[in-house]
């Protein structure tokens, strides 16, 4: 296929970068670790700012605007406040688990960025199984969340953690299936090559895939309308009810870093990653990430929360069948359609998406229309 245009030169670029220097690849590792941590922390702050200000404006108020110009330093102020708070561990808590949980929840999220390309070849490790690595590593967060729920010895926390595990296990499947259909087109698991293959952003080739991935991604990272793990009006704060101070900060950070990770992966998989005219690639990448995140903020502002059984029903009855069908159709298209005609594929896929969503909307009823408890 023409869309699979490998740019091997640029891939070799980073591999040739450090050998002259002492320490060999460790320089590369160091530079990118710093870049990734800086990128994540900075964008998380940006996200918090965007979320609070954007949400404020959508709710007819201003949002935080006191610290720094336009309230830009609000995340910093929040961070300082939260770090200075007392660290409270409940008496009956499982101390070790309670302590370990935020670390386990946060570390994998940071590790995801190891394979996300910021521009052509600018990636910590261009693993040839990159997207598989992302799927594998991002699920580890759930363990941290469950540990938090268990270790807090609080019923609300436990409920939140149980919901989290149930939801993540279910949503992982449509998530992986939609990724598989993208991989099917590209023919590679490497994120850099997925980006390089996107002469046409895959959101056009895979509209249904994008929709499914966005929904499943939102559910996976606990964004509204699927924010049941910490549904504030039901179970107070879910798994992090009993956390304060630095540990809470880590959870807070992990939550937004997860959002950032999912936005980055959506950008990479469906929105042509760092590719774009005029602006430097890393800026394109950041912009796209922010746009994806803004959509998440927008839905969070508008939508009510679903119930746990509805959440599961959505995963198994709506997302999973559609993801399977999408995978099948993509497979057929990759095999049969001539590579020179991507526009046929785009049109066909859009038609199929509309048809399927309408059809499934009719089929899809909780308990076949019965009211289930």
């Amino acid at each position, binding site marked *: 296929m023409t869309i699979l245009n490998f740019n091997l030169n640029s891939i070799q670029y980073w591999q040739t970068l450090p050998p002259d220097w002492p320490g060999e690849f460790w320089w590369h590792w160091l530079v990118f670790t710093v870049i990734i941590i800086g990128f994540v922390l900075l964008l998380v702050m940006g996200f918090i700012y965007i979320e609070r200000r954007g949400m404020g404006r959508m709710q007819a108020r201003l949002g935080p605007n006191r610290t720094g110009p336009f309230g830009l330093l609000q995340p910093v102020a929040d961070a300082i406040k939260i770090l200075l708070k007392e660290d409270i561990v409940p008496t009956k808590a499982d101390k070790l688990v309670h302590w370990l949980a935020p670390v386990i929840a946060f570390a994998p999220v940071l590790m995801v960025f190891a394979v996300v390309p910021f521009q052509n070849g600018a990636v910590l490790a261009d693993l040839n199984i990159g997207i598989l690595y992302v799927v594998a590593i991002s699920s580890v967060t759930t363990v941290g969340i469950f540990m938090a729920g268990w270790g807090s010895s609080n019923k609300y926390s436990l409920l939140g953690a149980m919901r989290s595990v149930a939801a993540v296990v279910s949503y992982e499947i449509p998530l992986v299936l939609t990724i598989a259909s993208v991989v099917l087109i590209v023919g590679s698991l490497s994120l850099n090559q997925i980006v390089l293959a996107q002469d046409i952003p895959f959101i056009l080739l895979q509209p249904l895939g994008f929709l499914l991935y966005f929904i499943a991604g939102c559910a996976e990272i606990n964004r509204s309308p699927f924010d049941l793990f910490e549904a504030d009006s039901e179970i107070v704060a879910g798994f992090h009810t009993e956390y304060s101070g630095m540990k809470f900060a880590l959870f807070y950070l992990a939550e937004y870093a997860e959002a950032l990770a999912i936005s980055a992966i959506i950008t990479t998989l469906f929105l042509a990653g760092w590719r774009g005219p005029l602006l430097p690639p890393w800026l394109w990448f950041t912009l796209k990430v922010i746009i994806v995140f803004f959509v998440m903020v927008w839905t969070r502002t508008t939508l009510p929360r*679903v119930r746990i059984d509805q959440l599961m029903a959505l995963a198994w009855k709506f997302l999973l069948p559609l993801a399977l069908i999408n995978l099948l159709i993509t497979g057929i298209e990759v095999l049969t359609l001539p590579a020179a005609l991507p526009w046929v594929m785009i049109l066909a896929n859009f038609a199929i998406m509309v048809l399927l969503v309408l059809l499934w909307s009719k089929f899809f009823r909780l308990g076949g229309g019965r009211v289930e*408890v």
Partner: protein
Amino acid sequence: MALRTEPFVLNVGPVHPSTHGVFRMRATLDGEVIVNIEPVFGYLHRGIEKLAEERTYSGIIPLTDRLDYLASMSNNLAYVLAVEKLAEIEVPERAEYLRVIMVELQRIASHLIGVGSFLNDCGAFFTPFLYMFREREKVVDMLDMVSGQRLTYNYMRIGGVSQDIPDEFLPALDKFLKQMPGFIDEYDQLLKENEILLARAKGVGILPKELAINISASGPVLRGSGVKWDIRKADPYSVYDRFEFDIPTGTVGDCYDRYRVRVEEMRQSLRIIKQAMEQLPPGAVRSEVPHLLRPPVGEAYGHIESPKGELGFYLVSDNSIAPYRCHIRAPSLINLTALRDMMIGWKIADAIIIFGSIDVCMGEIDR
């Protein structure tokens, strides 16, 4: 392999984001499903009924402000109606109209909070709540203009209202009446047809018609179950018999119906205010009532349709300056009786929205 499970007790409250005050639900859960629930309250008990026995008849009016603090005007009206019935006091016509305008404005304000917090309980993260607070603010501004305070109005007096409305009130009210329907439409656009809300609220927490009557539910809870019972129509007090308005009712009695009934009631209130504004006669707003009122020995029950339901004051007089007994029939308390029937079998998330759909005010429950 059979897993051994056991129900566990979850205390929802007294400090919980969605209990609308200090209210506790002792829920026994099987997983997420509610097996048993018992409401526990009294955290806000101030003994208003006892306090009222030691105060003069006019001194009780500020106390009634603190019952259902989201609808002080209605509480004031219910109380002064009871006293007027007890002491047989005539109220000037203009005052009656002003009372109706204020109470209907108050109903809009209270329903805005009721609906807003219900939607917030559903998980719509503060957006409908803040939109509705914006409009409530406009109502509160107007009530503030008239009475001088934003929450505890203390506006009604025995035999009228405390002061006539200022000149700028009627233009402001007119403007509000023009704006408000658009805003109600906006709320409907925001969430009325939202699939997630429909899934969450439709068919959830059904209160059947017979049970609703048997349980003495009143207000939107009763009407949501399809009973056309509104004291403004059934037993018109003040000058309600002069206005044309409909009683919106639900069909099934689920959370969604109660939510819709509240929204429709806001529209009806606007209709009433409009008519009252057009008919507003000139004249005095307060009849001559002795400062320390001594009603004849006897008893009176004055009831109104407050935003939460039937609010009644049962006063017993022994011809002294303070009532011998002042009982308050608080709609929130009695509506809560239905809580257990509505909640059992539903999930904890539903329990929250069922509680939100009853729209209680803790100040009134505990008194």
